[in-house]
């Protein structure tokens, strides 16, 4: 049921000037144009209320666009909604399954909604519930599951139609680190197997590690859309946190380095990526300050994200500060 006209180069997702204005007048999307290549692991980031969920809602047929076009593997959502839905698996932000049904029933029923015969649906449900370590809970009412299990159940459910495009809207919110890592392993494996993945998350270090391309949306507009490597390459300033022995009394002047005293035993050093660290350590050493450990203050993507969102589209390309 894929689009026979679609070639290997057909984008997994293409939106053209997509706009959405809600009945209360809120403009959630202001002309979003986006392309996601097939097989990509794509991050869609933005602050709360930026328009991410509206965009995902339009793609998954839960929100009607005001104007514009969206195509999934070349199929227009206006012309063939059913055809688009067959390509997509959705893991929404909010829990949206019947809490009185069991995980097994939920998965098999959703497969049925996609027209997948029950025999195949049962086999798939067993496989994905097993892979997401939920099989031992498969026959318990879903309301008995923990928060992390419910999140994994929604991933298993989204896999029931074995989608070509998997959309994950903050799938790890509120999930502990161990389960989050196992979820990412699963999603990464799905992506390596050929499924295109679009991810929204507030854990930016995860987006940085997992995603190859990225779009940042703010106030309903795309403010950045590039590869993760290119985006990170724009950042030429880093901030280091230095733990020091003894008290932070008088800081040295180091050209090209902005030194700040955070507390009695902690310094922050903001400097260009090209700047060598030796001069900093030499200056600190000359003042009798001993550095006991050092780390990056924040992850790089988070720093870029904050700058892009703070400055909006007018500061595109100036994130190097």
């Amino acid at each position: 049921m894929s689009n026979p006209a679609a070639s290997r180069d057909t984008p997994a997702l293409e939106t053209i000037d997509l706009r959405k204005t809600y009945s209360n007048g809120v403009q959630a999307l202001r002309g979003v144009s986006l392309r996601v290549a097939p097989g990509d692991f794509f991050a869609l980031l933005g602050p709360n209320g930026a328009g991410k969920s509206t965009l995902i809602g339009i793609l998954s047929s839960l929100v009607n666009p005001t104007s514009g076009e969206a195509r999934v593997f070349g199929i227009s959502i206006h012309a063939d909604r059913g055809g688009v839905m067959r390509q997509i698996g959705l893991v929404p932000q909010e829990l949206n399954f019947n809490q009185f049904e069991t995980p097994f029933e939920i998965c098999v029923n959703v497969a049925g909604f996609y027209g997948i015969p029950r025999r195949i649906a049962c086999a798939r449900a067993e496989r994905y519930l097993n892979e997401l370590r939920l099989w031992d809970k498969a026959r318990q009412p879903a309301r008995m599951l923990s928060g992390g299990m419910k999140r994994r159940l929604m991933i298993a459910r989204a896999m029931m139609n074995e989608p070509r495009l998997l959309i994950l809207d903050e799938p790890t919110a509120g999930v502990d680190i161990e389960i989050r890592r196992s979820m990412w392993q699963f999603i990464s494996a799905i992506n390596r197997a050929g499924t295109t993945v679009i991810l929204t998350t507030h854990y930016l270090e995860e987006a940085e590690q997992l995603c190859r391309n990225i779009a940042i949306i703010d106030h309903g507009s795309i403010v950045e859309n590039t590869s993760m490597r290119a985006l990170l390459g724009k950042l030429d300033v880093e901030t280091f946190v230095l733990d020091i022995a003894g008290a932070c009394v008088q800081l040295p002047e180091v050209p090209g380095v902005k030194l700040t005293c955070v507390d009695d035993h902690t310094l922050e050093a903001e400097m260009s990526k090209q700047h060598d660290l030796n001069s900093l350590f030499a200056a600190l050493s000359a003042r009798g300050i001993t550095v006991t450990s050092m780390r990056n203050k924040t992850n790089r993507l988070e720093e870029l994200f904050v700058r892009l969102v703070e400055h909006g589209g007018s500061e595109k390309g100036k994130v190097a500060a």
Partner: protein
Amino acid sequence: MNDLRTEIAINAGASEFSVARANAVALYTITRREVRRMLRIWTQTLIPPAITMTLYFVIFGTLIGRRIGMMHGFTYMQYIVPGLVMMSVITNSYGNITSSFFGSKFGRYVEELLASPMPSWVVLTGYVAGAVLRGLLVGGIVLGISLFFTSLRVAHPLVAISTVLLGSTIFSLAGFINAMFARKFDDIAIVPTFVLTPLTYLGGVFYSVNMLGEPWHTVSLVNPILYMVNAFRFGVLGVADVPLWIAYLVMCGFAALLAAIALTLLHRGVGLRS
């Protein structure tokens, strides 16, 4: 993960099932889910109408009915059985679809349906089928209970069955529309309380409309439930207050109109999509 990769690659390009077959599977899935829901909460769906109707039979049929003479050649108990069966069918079909569909909106799992490739008519047909099956099951239970109180011989089985199916379908569709517009649980209780119950009681369940003087006789003819009750009574007892062809015309007209409205609303996503 290798077998997973292979399977995804195969599914990505291949057309596994025809659209028609996919729709048939989807329709079966919704109907099955609705029936399982009804059976899972049988103490709420099957027992209350059985108890209520038993009380009707005891009080109206046995105790009061003895003091009422023959109605169209039948005892009062026999006369009210078709109306009470139809009343159960109507109220349970309506109640089933409103609570189930509004529940899916309230719990947000209606999104499973909206984000699937199913066309609107499959969603509607699946929910209506589930509600009709509950109506038929409850109707059968009530009819079975009535046999403890009186004897019945179904005069026109085809008329009886088609009338129950049409009546149940009409009120399932009406309940679906109600659930689409409903924003809170109160909204699905208002129509049964203020519209459905009065219309049912004034629809000739307990009396013949020919007993009414004017203008109430003419006013009663506007009530669609009157035609359902009388058509079913004709199917069971062979007597009715209205011509059968008019009853079928009214029922088919209502079914077609409500189906068109429900499909249009569903297609537009009224109360469902932003």
